[in-house]
């Protein structure tokens, strides 16, 4: 066997005994390894920060939210004032996004619409979250018979075609924002509850939970201190992705004439209103349609980015 034994001490010449004095542990310029020392959340956040596309989407979302808040205020028009002398006007200095069939300013209406759509999307997602987490948490935590019954119930509910229930609900109850949100959440929470259930079931047998339990932690503490925070990743991702779903569903309901009440408009209902004449007044469809698409895009991309950031499988 020949080992690489060439000039074993090529630099020996320059070495001095001083070089061979021991370094005290305190002086060591020890490698500080950053990766392990930061919390999983910060880690995820940093990964997210590095994902330029996802951050772009987040910035876009924030801009949309901001515009939805201040957009209607910086215009001198109100979203519901008709001007029959100025109907279907092209975009101009006077009306930045043009006017609609009743002469209402499209700029104000578009941002008001965005506001309504966001409210619908966010409320529906948050209600899904609330019910889903509680229901799913109970299923996952208690398991056994409780889980079996509750799970079967949600499966049965899930089998009911959602469109049907939604339409029926919207016709039965007074139309309005509340009803729409209710209709969207009636089956929307099920998916969330299943995700929470799956996570909790996986987590509850982990060592630290067992340890905590052996130390006498109560169910509530276990669920809220240990289990849910650790299941937060998939929950947040699902939440992010369910916002655009709700916005889209509302648009779909608008198409069926079951959307929000005029003169209030959502992006979906505005697109639908413009649909019959869009070839002649393209701006009436274009602005809300682009905004709805961009919102959808941004939520989806940001959600994907979040998933990547929170998914430990992709950690390198």
């Amino acid at each position, binding site marked *: 066997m020949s080992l690489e034994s060439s000039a074993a001490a090529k630099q020996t010449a320059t070495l001095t005994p001083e070089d061979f004095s021991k370094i005290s542990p305190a002086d060591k310029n020890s490698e500080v390894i950053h990766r392990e020392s930061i919390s999983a959340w910060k880690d995820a956040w940093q990964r997210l920060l590095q994902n330029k596309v996802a951050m772009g989407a987040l910035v876009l979302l924030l801009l949309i939210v901001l515009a939805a808040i201040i957009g209607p205020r910086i215009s001198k028009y109100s979203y*519901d*004032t*008709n001007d*029959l*002398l100025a*109907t*279907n006007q092209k975009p101009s200095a006077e009306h930045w996004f043009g006017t609609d*069939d*009743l002469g209402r300013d499209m700029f104000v209406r578009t941002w008001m619409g965005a506001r309504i759509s966001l409210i619908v999307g966010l409320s529906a997602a948050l209600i899904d979250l609330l019910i889903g987490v509680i229901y799913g948490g109970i299923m996952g935590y208690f398991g056994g018979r409780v889980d079996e019954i509750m799970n079967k119930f949600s499966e049965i509910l899930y089998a009911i075609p959602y469109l049907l229930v939604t339409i029926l609900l*919207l*016709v039965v109850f007074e*139309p309005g924002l509340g009803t729409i949100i209710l209709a969207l959440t009636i089956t929307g929470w099920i998916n969330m509850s299943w995700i929470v259930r799956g996570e909790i079931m996986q987590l509850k047998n982990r060592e630290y939970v067992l340890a905590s339990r052996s130390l006498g932690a109560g169910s509530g503490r276990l669920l809220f201190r240990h289990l849910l925070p650790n299941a937060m990743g998939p929950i947040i991702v699902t939440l992010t992705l369910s916002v655009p779903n709700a916005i889209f569903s509302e648009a779909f309901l608008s198409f069926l*004439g*079951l959307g929000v*009440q*005029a*003169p209030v408009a959502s992006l979906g209902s505005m697109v639908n*209103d*413009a*649909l*019959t*004449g869009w070839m*002649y*007044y393209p701006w009436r469809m274009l602005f809300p349609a682009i905004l709805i698409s961009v919102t959808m895009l941004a939520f989806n991309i940001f959600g994907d980015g979040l998933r990547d950031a929170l998914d430990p499988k992709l950690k390198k």
Partner: protein
Amino acid sequence: MKKQRWLVLLTLVLAVGMVLSACGSSNNSGNKGASSSTDTSSSPSSSDAGGEKLAADQTLRINFAADVPTFDPAQAQDNQAHTALNLTYEGLVRVDASNKEVPGVAESWEPSADGKTYTFHLRKDAKWSNGDPVTAHDFVYAWQRVLDPATDPAPAYSYQLYYLENAEAYNKKKITDFSKVGVKAVDEYTLEVKLTNPTPYFVNLTSFYTYFPVHKSVKDNPKWATDPSTMITNGPFTLKSLVTGQSMEFDKNPNYWDNADIKLNKIKATVVNSSATEVLSYQNGELERAGKPNGDIPADQLPILKDQYKDEFKLDPVANIYYYEFNMKAKPFDNAKIRKAFSMAISRDDIVNKVTMGGEAPAFGFIPPGIKGAESNYRDEYKDDFFTEDVEQAKQLLQEGMQEAGYTTLPPITLIYNTNDNHKKIALAIVDMWKKNLGVDVTIQNQEWGVFIKNRQNGDYQVARAGWVPDYNDPMTFIDMWTKNSGNNDIKLDNPEYDKLVADAYTNSDSKARMEAFYKAEKILIQDEAGVMPIYYYTQASLTKDYLKGVTIDYSGAVDYSRAYLTEHK
């Protein structure tokens, strides 16, 4: 393990097979319609009609916005059925392009001196599509079917026949002997009709579908009107195929007595309920006619299409009215001055010119132009000048009204309309006018059709959108609905004088006196009570290719394609 997977596969195959076989059977019926579209049967006589050269292919393509719910004249109630039944059936008389009664199955007819009995002489060459002759008995049978309390489901339009003596009593089970009802087949070809009151418009009425004859074979087959193969009809066309939600095809009926005058070979109808799609389909050359009454043109496109298709775009005034109802039993509209103020504070010109843009006529009365009066049109004889729009006066009226009712501010007001783009636009515009002109905030609420109509008919509303289509060509159809006991009196008008005027008009056979009564009643309704706020008299917008001729639209807007034809075109 292996076994289990095979079982799974088997189950899967079975399940898919089930689904596929379920649809396989219905596929056939779908293809039937498609295949028959290729056979272009005998082309029409190429002789020109009045200097025009007929097109070789006499196939008319039109659209229905919804399925025809029934092809049974006794059960029909809507526009779609109206158009379809006008093609497949023929009543005692027809109405021509100038709204004149012309012979249909009846060659001639004469009223008695008191105007209460009509004798119709039927033509001997009228035949059913299976070759059977059309006889007076077929009419008696059909009318009995409509009135028979045992008919299932009960025909909602049975009241259209209540002009006949004892018809109402028989229909409402007060008498059980149909021979007491005022219709009798004197012989095979003579039909005698006795009426309760002299009814000048009765002959015209027999052109309406509820009066159409029905072949006796339907007795044993409750589903006869759902299947083209069991439909025996007597009109210029027969239903050839029917694909629910998709298409209908009508073929020329060779057994029709006047088929020499029928030039179309075939009528193909699509069933598309999106008005935008319908217009696009027309623009793309897939339809010869689009728009009302069977379809629609999107309000957004009206002003543009009007310019772009100058020669094809038509606005036909029709005797329908668009109006708002005030609930006279609900606050604050229990006060006439307040109602009137609201009615005077809007600009109908702006609505028709800038919102609906369909060339409608602003309405200041309730009876539309096109409804017959004593000599000519009622509206020509009596002007609708019951009030004028005047913001200042409206404000003052509102003040007075509020004082009378003791308001310092008005209670909250909600306007309801049924979900529809056009209704929405009008509502938004009117609410905005009220706000600007009266300083009153009105909330608008759209309601799904069934919910809306229920609320309105139950009086659960303050202001509601409404429209009225006449049942027959006489002012009565617009006036008797507001009598105290009328089921359609949603505004809850309760005016004894009004009711008396209507009762008089019913029994009076003098045209002039009747019209006078209607005018007085209309004045009460609009000027004194202001229970309804007329907005406009409808027009019907449609696009018709310039080579499509002979389509007639009657006073109410119903369309008759039976005498239409296509001239030569590219």
